[in-house]
């Protein structure tokens, strides 16, 4: 290959493409030509390390090209040119427009940072990452290193935050998947078990609670699972911003560098084929990361460094290159601590060995830094220093292996106009009229459905109590096994102040099923669900912050791009409507593989909205289980003919019917009123309506609280005339069930005045969920039987 690089500046376009294919750089022809033009200008051929650096820096993973490039979009007959690219015209634009003063650092660091608590003393950092490609190939190691990576993002934001909670959201094919798989693919059951084991083993060993998550099942995740891992950390506000000064030392701390993890960034920017490189897969070392975490917290408290970032995709090349992008940097890789001696210099440069961080240390602080690192048994190496040259200069001993101008490396990637097409499918009204006796049976089936049933078998594997701050837990109710809407965390382990009861809630919205019919509404529904879940635990939804995670197939497919454009537009509208800025985000493309018949199988286009909002007094947080017989039950929100893509529709084979359409303006107005009622102490219980609709939510509340409920659908607020089945199982958005004491009925009416709400029934002493329409009994089910259905499905 060295010979081909010598001829680099004279190679034809096709030879350049062949070269990049052989080297696994995942660069397109235009990018190879741009690189060739640069090296022609400076009058020499590149070294392998330089081309590896370009490939890493320009990878989809690092540069987010699909979100930054212009897009030509055709929606039906309507054409649009999105010149600025999706990021600037949607998620980032919404954040800029909302201009919330409590956003301290957004879209410019390893995580988004917002204010936390009172007196502006603390800040909260939140990041969610994906680790899809590695998990498809080696689920255990892939999941472990996914957790390790996102935790390091939090350690590497600003001057470092202390991680206080991890989140985990997975999309898998069902564990009993029976279709034929291609030879290299692992069965979904193995992927599920491996991923869950990996998240458990890494998170638990780090001493960070894994306390919020979700799982979505769909056959089309068989070859490419989606593994979203997130971390929230708390930091002092003085530590929110970092700055690199020329003359400061480049100090690498943590794990040693080896050949594991080569080409991770470019690997995640390509379609997985049979011959996926073994070296792209890594195995995490949680104990090493714990040493880094402990050392970092001590170094940060003493203000011994001025900037930090983690070694993620691209390893040293990406981390050191980014830190030095505004001044310049000069390093010697011979000083790096290695796992093995046979490693090539360029491999040291791009290796993605885990558990490594880069610190920017003023020379006068080096001794103090070394003392702490030695005390924490954390290995380190001083690799070089930051300069004023505006150049990335890398040596291996006396050999200069990289000498690149920052303007080329960080600004030289060519823009390519991408094509996006969308044709809205025709949807129709639904019909759901079953004999009254059959609705109980349908409810049981809905509860047992993979996308609605209990996740206890997974949740119990995670330590969600470590650090002692998980106030509202993922499993709720009298037996601690009901499905919580969100978790509430009291980060006392970070603040150390046991008299300060400020906390935060963390929730998610995900529903790729809706996206199959309407990607725009998928995004809005996910925003709505995330906000609704926060509200249900008593969080102040006026201060909601969103994170986006887009997971898609190939961006070269115009139809998938069409869905992406609409989803991003939905995110923009959702953020503005809920007044909730996006503070961080991530995209993952090429989540597709050839199936057993050799046909491309992309994952269902998926957006995950993660959300957090403050809970000013964690002692007043609310859970979803029914509390007391005799209490009133209210429903807030309108039920519509929106069975499309619902749990019941999938069970009954109802296709192409209307999916939930979000009226965000009305929803937010109602949510604010509910929050007001919560602040007055009027609400005992709140639960959102999602999978299984009204019937599903009532059942979950009843069996979690060990109490029955008597409901009458007479007065249920509906749009148009709906059948009993539609009322019970429609999955219309923005609906919440509330429990309140009868003595507060007048106060509730006053608090909710102006929003769509009605009292639908009462909590009962008996162990039955009874639903009537007038005097006609539609459902009469023993809550223990319903719970059994909900718990009986094997999720792994």
């Amino acid at each position, binding site marked *: 290959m060295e010979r081909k690089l010598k001829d680099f500046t004279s190679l034809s376009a096709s030879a350049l493409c062949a070269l990049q294919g052989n080297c696994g750089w995942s660069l397109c022809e235009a990018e190879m030509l741009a690189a060739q033009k640069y090296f022609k200008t400076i009058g020499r051929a590149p070294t392998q390390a330089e081309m590896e650096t370009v490939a890493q820096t320009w990878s989809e993973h690092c540069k987010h090209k699909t979100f930054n490039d212009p897009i030509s979009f055709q929606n039906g007959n309507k054409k649009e040119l999105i010149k600025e690219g999706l990021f600037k015209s949607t998620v980032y634009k919404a954040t800029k427009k909302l201009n919330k003063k409590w956003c301290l650092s957004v879209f410019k660091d390893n995580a988004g940072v917002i204010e936390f608590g009172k007196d502006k003393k603390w800040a909260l950092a939140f990041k969610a990452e994906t680790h899809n490609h590695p998990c498809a190939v080696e689920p255990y190691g892939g999941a472990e290193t996914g957790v390790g990576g996102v935790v390091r993002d939090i350690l590497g934001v600003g001057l470092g935050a202390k991680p206080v909670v991890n989140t985990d959201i997975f999309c898998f094919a069902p564990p009993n998947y029976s279709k034929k798989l291609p030879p290299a693919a692992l069965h979904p059951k193995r992927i599920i078990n491996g991923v869950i084991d990996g998240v458990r083993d890494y998170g638990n060993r780090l001493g960070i609670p894994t306390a919020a998550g979700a799982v979505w099942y769909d056959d089309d995740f068989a070859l490419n699972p989606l593994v979203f891992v997130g971390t929230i950390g708390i930091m002092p506000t003085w530590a929110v911003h970092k700055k690199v000064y020329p003359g400061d030392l480049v100090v690498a701390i943590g794990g040693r560098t080896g050949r594991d993890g080569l080409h991770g960034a470019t690997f995640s920017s390509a379609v997985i084929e049979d011959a996926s490189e*073994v070296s792209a897969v890594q195995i995490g070392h949680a104990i090493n990361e714990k040493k880094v975490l402990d050392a970092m917290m001590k170094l940060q408290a003493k203000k011994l460094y001025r900037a930090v970032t983690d070694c993620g995709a691209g390893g040293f090349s990406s981390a050191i290159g980014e830190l030095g992008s505004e001044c310049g940097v000069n390093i010697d890789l011979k000083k790096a601590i290695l796992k093995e001696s046979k490693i090539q210099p360029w491999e040291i440069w791009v290796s993605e060995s885990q558990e490594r961080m880069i610190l920017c240390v003023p020379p006068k602080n080096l001794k103090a830094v070394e003392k702490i690192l030695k005390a924490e048994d954390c290995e380190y190496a001083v690799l070089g220093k930051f300069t004023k040259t505006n150049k990335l200069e890398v040596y291996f001993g006396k050999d200069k292996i990289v000498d690149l101008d920052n303007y080329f490396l960080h600004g030289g990637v060519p823009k390519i106009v991408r094509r996006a097409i969308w044709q809205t499918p025709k949807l129709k009204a639904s019909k759901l009229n079953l004999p009254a006796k059959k609705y109980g049976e349908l409810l049981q089936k809905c509860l047992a459905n993979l996308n609605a049933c209990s996740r206890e078998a997974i949740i119990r594997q995670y330590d969600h109590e470590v650090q002692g701050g998980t106030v509202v837990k993922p499993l709720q109710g009298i037996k601690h096994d009901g499905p919580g809407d969100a978790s509430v965390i009291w980060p006392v382990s970070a603040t150390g102040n046991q008299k300060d009861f400020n906390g935060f809630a963390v929730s998610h919205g995900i529903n790729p099923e809706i996206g199959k019919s309407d990607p725009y509404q998928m995004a809005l529904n996910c925003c709505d669900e995330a906000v609704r879940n926060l509200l249900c635990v008593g969080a102040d939804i006026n201060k909601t912050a969103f994170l986006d995670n887009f997971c898609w197939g190939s961006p070269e497919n115009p139809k998938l791009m069409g869905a992406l454009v609409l989803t991003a537009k939905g995110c923009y509208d959702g953020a503005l409507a809920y007044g909730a800025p996006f503070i961080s985000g991530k995209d993952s493309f090429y989540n597709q593989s050839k199936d057993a018949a050799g046909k491309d199988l992309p994952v269902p286009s998926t957006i995950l909205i993660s959300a957090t909002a403050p809970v000013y007094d964690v002692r007043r947080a609310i859970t979803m289980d029914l509390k007391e017989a005799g209490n009133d039950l209210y429903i807030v929100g309108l039920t519509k003919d929106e069975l499309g893509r619902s749990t019941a529709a999938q069970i009954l084979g109802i296709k192409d019917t209307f999916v939930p359409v979000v009226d965000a303006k009305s929803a937010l107005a109602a949510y604010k009123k509910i929050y007001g009622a919560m602040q007055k102490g009027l609400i005992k219980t709140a639960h959102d309506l999602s999978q299984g609709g009204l019937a599903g939510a009532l059942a979950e509340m009843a069996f979690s609280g060990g109490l029955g409920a008597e409901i009458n659908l007479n007065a249920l607020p509906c749009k148009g005339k709906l059948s009993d089945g539609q009322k019970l199982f429609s999955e219309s958005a923005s609906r919440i069930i509330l429990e309140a004491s009868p003595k507060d009925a007048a106060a509730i009416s006053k608090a909710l005045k102006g929003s769509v709400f009605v009292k639908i029934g009462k909590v009962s002493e008996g162990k039955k969920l009874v639903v009537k329409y007038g005097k006609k009994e539609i459902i009469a089910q023993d809550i223990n039987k319903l719970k059994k259905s909900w718990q009986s499905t094997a999720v792994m």
Partner: protein
Amino acid sequence: MESFVEVFYKKNYGDRKIIRIKNRLASVGLKNIKEIIPSTIYKISGDYSAAQIKKIAQNLLTDPVLETNQIGLSKPKDFYKVEVWIRDSSTDVVGESVKYAVAALGESLPLGVRVGNSFAIKGSFTKPQLEAAVKKTFVNEVVNKFTIEGF
């Protein structure tokens, strides 16, 4: 020089692990399993005397309440023996921890330690059937290498 230490559960203490192995193999069609003996194998590279290896095995690698050990590898009669290792090209995280723990015990730092999961298995099935089941359950050839010996 390489030394092997194999650590076993004492009788009645490894039942859950045995059931788990049995269930996983059964889930991919390997039935008629009569007996399973699980173990963990430590391959220690370095210049150590037999007494030093015995000390490492006793004081570091074996829980005296639950486990027992033997120096060298077992070859139970009438059993197939399955060994699953992390490939040499991948970091063996547990092995790395053991390596530094040996030094903390007062011995010289090993050149390397690798840790393998192993089980001896007896039943009415053929070696190819066992191999197919092991590949579908305990081995991901992207990161693992494995051997099946016996009969």
